[in-house]
């Protein structure tokens, strides 16, 4: 019986008494695209910080395919298979697009194993696949900092795929994108579904409709509701907490 991709068990963090995340539990299965909804300040980004190691939790556990990764250092969590995409796209602006992807696709992270110039066949293949998937083959020699906003987001996504991350945390991946770019991102995510597990924080409901397998709603750091889009729309508690009575648009 294989363990679910991501298991959060009573996860919580308290900052001088203020509980940003409180006793949060959730199970995400392999290959799923789970969308995390919640008003601003509900604790969504903090939750991602806890999973990826940016913030240390004060309660609960995080398990990746059954392996306990609670409070490990960021790079160990990343090596275990967690990838994180930030709200403000973070890529290596002073390096070329090619170099960004090369850094991401490198198989072994230690200094000593990287005292070499050549790429392994495995890395080359992964590199080529990623370039194909995110559609940046024309921009390989451009400086990453010169890319458009949408292209930067896709580059970051590509880096996460190249990293070999099995569970990817996406924090507002379509923020600042045009309609066209949003749709392309949606199809990208749908291509990745199945081979990757994704946890997505989003506000753009049209986008959510395109990609979500299941939705989890957070409120005031706690788990409020979970289910399909339809069930969430109909959920009284969700309406009251977050949407007002107008429903999801």
């Amino acid at each position: 019986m294989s363990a679910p991709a991501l298991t959060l068990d009573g996860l919580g963090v308290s900052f001088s008494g203020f509980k940003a995340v409180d006793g949060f539990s959730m199970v995400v299965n392999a290959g799923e695209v789970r969308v995390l909804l919640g008003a601003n300040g509900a604790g969504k980004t903090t939750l991602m910080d806890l999973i990826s190691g940016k913030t240390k939790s004060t309660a609960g556990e995080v398990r990746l395919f059954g392996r306990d990764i609670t409070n490990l250092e960021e790079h160990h969590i990343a090596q275990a298979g967690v990838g994180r995409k930030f709200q403000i796209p973070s890529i290596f602006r002073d390096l070329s697009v090619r170099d960004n992807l090369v850094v991401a696709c490198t198989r072994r992270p230690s200094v000593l194993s990287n005292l070499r110039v050549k790429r392994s066949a495995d890395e080359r293949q992964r590199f080529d696949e990623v370039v194909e998937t995110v559609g940046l083959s024309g921009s390989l020699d451009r400086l990453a900092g010169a890319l458009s906003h949408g292209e930067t987001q896709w580059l970051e996504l590509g880096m996460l795929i190249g990293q070999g991350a099995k569970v990817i945390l996406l924090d507002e991946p379509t923020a600042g994108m045009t309609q066209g770019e949003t749709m392309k991102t949606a199809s990208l995510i749908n291509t990745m579904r199945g081979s990757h597990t994704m946890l997505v924080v989003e506000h753009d409901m049209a986008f959510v409709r395109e990609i979500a397998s299941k939705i989890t709603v957070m409120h005031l750091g706690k788990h409020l509701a979970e289910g399909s889009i339809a069930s969430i729309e109909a959920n009284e508690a969700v309406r009251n907490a977050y949407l007002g009575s107008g429903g999801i648009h």
Partner: protein
Amino acid sequence: MNLSFHQRWELFAYAAFVVAILLLPLVADAFWLNRFAKYLVFGMLGIAVALSWGYAGILNLGQGLFFGVGAYMISMSLKLQSPTSQLPGAQTPIPDFMLWNAEPDAMKDLCCITDGSWLWIPFQYQGFGIAMAVLVPALIAFLIGYAIFRLRVSGVFISIITLALVLLVRLVIIEFQPVTNGFNGLTDLGWLTLGGVEFDPYLVSTYYIVAIGTILVLLLTRLLVAARAGLILQATRDDANRARYLGYNVAAYQVFFFTVSGLIAGIAGMLYVIASEFASPTFLDLAFSVSMVVWAAVGGRSSLLGACIGAILINTVQATASESEMLGEAWKAIVGLMFVLAVLYLPRGLAGLARDLLDRLREQVPTRRGALPTPQRSE
């Protein structure tokens, strides 16, 4: 080997530099060769700074610490080989300053002539001095780096810590006068002896030791940054968090390259002593450490060859200018001005300027094929 336009020119620049350095003895007399050997050492320091600052993003304002320690280590051995340390009737060579500071009834032996003199005992073997000059600065760099980077100290605080450290060690060296001869430093050193051959600082062969050392450091460091680890290092400089979330132990990379940088500086210190026959606490002056950063900034902080040449250039002109006091002071003002202008308008230094000129020339001159060559990257 398929090289891009820029790579071909870089190769050419490196080759030209190496050839020029090796052929210098044909045109320079012993006096100038010796001077130039010292500038080559400063070039090495420029390389160390470029590696740490340009590639790793670590602004070390106390590089002189490793330089000075390397210098003192080899000096201790060379001091014991000096004729001034030979005392008839003594079991071991004894540095003259220890003799002068000793109690009248102290035993004339390195073990106990003054406090701490026993530290000098193993330096009777020249090989030990050489080994220590290479290993101790690297070890210190490793320890400092480990402490700083594990704690995720970053930005200006790294600069302040390294600055405080070089000042601290300078004071320690001055304070422990019985062992280090304090302010006066170690002078009247013997000559380096390898395989029975003595290396007088004014010999051509001594110049070649320094020159080959510099060339080796330059080439090996260039290879190092061309490796995958070098690219990852630059990524950590660009965005350390992003690198972490990709699975890289950023601290490990920083410690590794900080240590290599300290190692280079230590070797530079050793070579400097071989060429100039003294070690002094002035090697750990703050102004000296910061001037290394100036050389790298002017030459090109992200270019190893650029920083090296920048250091050599500035020091060569400075030496010529110092012939007259007025000119010497004026030159310092010009260096200051040059530095400000370089920081404002030439952030990539002279190396960056050269690269831009090259690009502009390429656009002007059509190639034989009638089209611009597309950049290829070697894999």
